[in-house]
């Protein structure tokens, strides 16, 4: 549904007879259950259009590509060497512990700020201009999220390659699994970030919220040092943080162990992605948001 009613006005069902033929082309309005082929094609085309627009902008601006990766790279280069002979309690060496954490940190400092772009576009009126067109509301979100996933994967490759240069050794399958986690985590964090950006009016409101969520989430996910080093109470709190399981899963994948830890990571990553996307879609579908 493109324009859900406010609580006081229940939306009447679509009128089948009165709807003009092109109405069938709009994905959500006429076919909430099973989209017709034309609607599905329009949705895919809308999503690719939005994806292409923002990918071109990211590539030409470059700043977005650099923004998120500087911090993890600094940690890798200036902090990583300190850990080489420190007993970290896990399997594998210090790079196999640190790099997975940095991949998640990259998500927190890059995808979580994805909404900034929408805040700027809102000021130019771009968001409203697009919302007045028949474009699928879902495509407005997913096209952007897809761009963020591609951007994050490129940044992740850079991070892993630099890691390898510093001494990281990990099985290829484990690295590919890690990239899968990066993609899922980006989908989650970017959706949440866009949802927040749609609801607030200015960067001054947006940034403090993201920062105040990001820092505790980062510290409680064992990004820099594994949570196995933590005292019981701290370890307990961190178990409520879904990203903890993803950091553990990526660490596990990096030492070639694809068992239960990876499974737990997949479950939490899918759960977080589902919740975040539902929330993002709800915000994007609401008229006037």
């Amino acid at each position, binding site marked *: 549904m493109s324009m859900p009613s406010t609580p006081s006005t229940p939306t009447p069902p679509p009128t089948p007879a009165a709807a003009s033929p092109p109405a069938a082309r709009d994905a959500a309005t006429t076919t909430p259950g099973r989209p017709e082929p034309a609607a599905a094609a329009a949705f895919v085309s809308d999503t690719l259009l939005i994806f292409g627009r923002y990918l071109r902008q990211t590539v030409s601006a470059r700043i977005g590509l650099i923004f998120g990766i500087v911090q993890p790279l600094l940690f890798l280069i200036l902090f990583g060497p300190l850990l080489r002979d420190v007993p970290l309690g896990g399997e594998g060496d210090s790079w196999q512990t640190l790099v997975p954490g940095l991949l998640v940190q990259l998500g927190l400092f890059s995808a979580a700020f994805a909404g900034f772009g929408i805040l700027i576009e809102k000021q130019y009126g771009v968001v409203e201009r697009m919302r007045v067109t*028949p474009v699928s509301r879902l495509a407005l979100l997913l096209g952007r999220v897809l761009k963020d996933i591609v951007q994050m994967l490129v940044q992740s490759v850079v991070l892993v390659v630099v890691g390898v240069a510093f001494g990281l050794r990990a099985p290829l399958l484990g690295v590919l699994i890690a990239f899968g986690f990066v993609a899922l985590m980006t989908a989650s964090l970017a959706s949440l970030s866009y949802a927040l950006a749609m609801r607030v009016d200015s960067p001054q409101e947006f940034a403090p919220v993201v920062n105040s969520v990001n820092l505790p989430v980062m510290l409680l996910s064992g990004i820099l040092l594994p949570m196995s080093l933590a005292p019981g109470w701290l370890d307990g709190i961190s178990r409520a943080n879904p990203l903890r399981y993803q950091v553990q899963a990526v660490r596990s994948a990096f030492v070639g162990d694809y068992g239960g830890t990876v499974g737990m990571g997949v479950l939490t990553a899918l759960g977080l992605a589902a919740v975040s996307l539902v929330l993002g879609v709800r915000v994007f579908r609401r008229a006037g948001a």
Partner: protein
Amino acid sequence: MTPVIHTTGLARTFTTKRGTVEAVRGIDLTVPAGEILGFLGPNGAGKTTTLRMLTTLLAPTGGSATVAGHDLLRDPAGVRRRIGYVAQSGGVDPAVSVREELTTQARLYRLDQAQARARTTELAADLDLSDLLDRPCAALSGGQRRRLDIAMGLVHHPDVLFLDEPTTGLDPGSRVDLWDLVRRIRDEWGTTVFLTTHYLDEADALADRLVVVDRGLVVAQGTAHALKTEYTGSPDSSLQDAFIAITGRRTPAPNETPIAV
């Protein structure tokens, strides 16, 4: 003939921490096809809220409306396909080129790639933007930007074009050019134009008919001539005098901040 816009008791209330605000209390409006309608009112009268409802950006909380043949509440997607909307802030990204914005806009209206390219060339020629196609939008002058904004609203040959304060911030020469463009859009394509404005001289010169809203209701409507005659007793008085007589308030100054919704 079926009107392009027809509303009955269209209303919107907002719930705030301090209670319920009735921004629009019930607008009854009929706009025939091919009309240039001037939508006027003091700040806070409900102009912007009404415009946002008619353009599907805001869900009404009461009443009903048909816009361009589609029911606003049941089929907002149908409405979107048939209307163009040019916000006061425009809606183009300054870093993106004129060509890309026009082509993207056409694609958002589901024209295919070739159609979108052809429509971009055609519109650019029509609105005197051809030489600017490969410039970033930021490089355009105020008048050029406004022409681009309007071109963005026309990519899909809409039945009705909504213009929110279209000449705010333009120099006098560009304003007159824009009036000519609005007339041309109506005369050549038969597009209905619904425009809000703070400038009463603009409303007087451009609009076939005026609708004045105040405190969320339509308080007067008619041609500029009829409103002057009815509210000041003389067709020779200014629209300003009629406006003050209708609303009991002075004209909103053009440099005042537009009301928030």
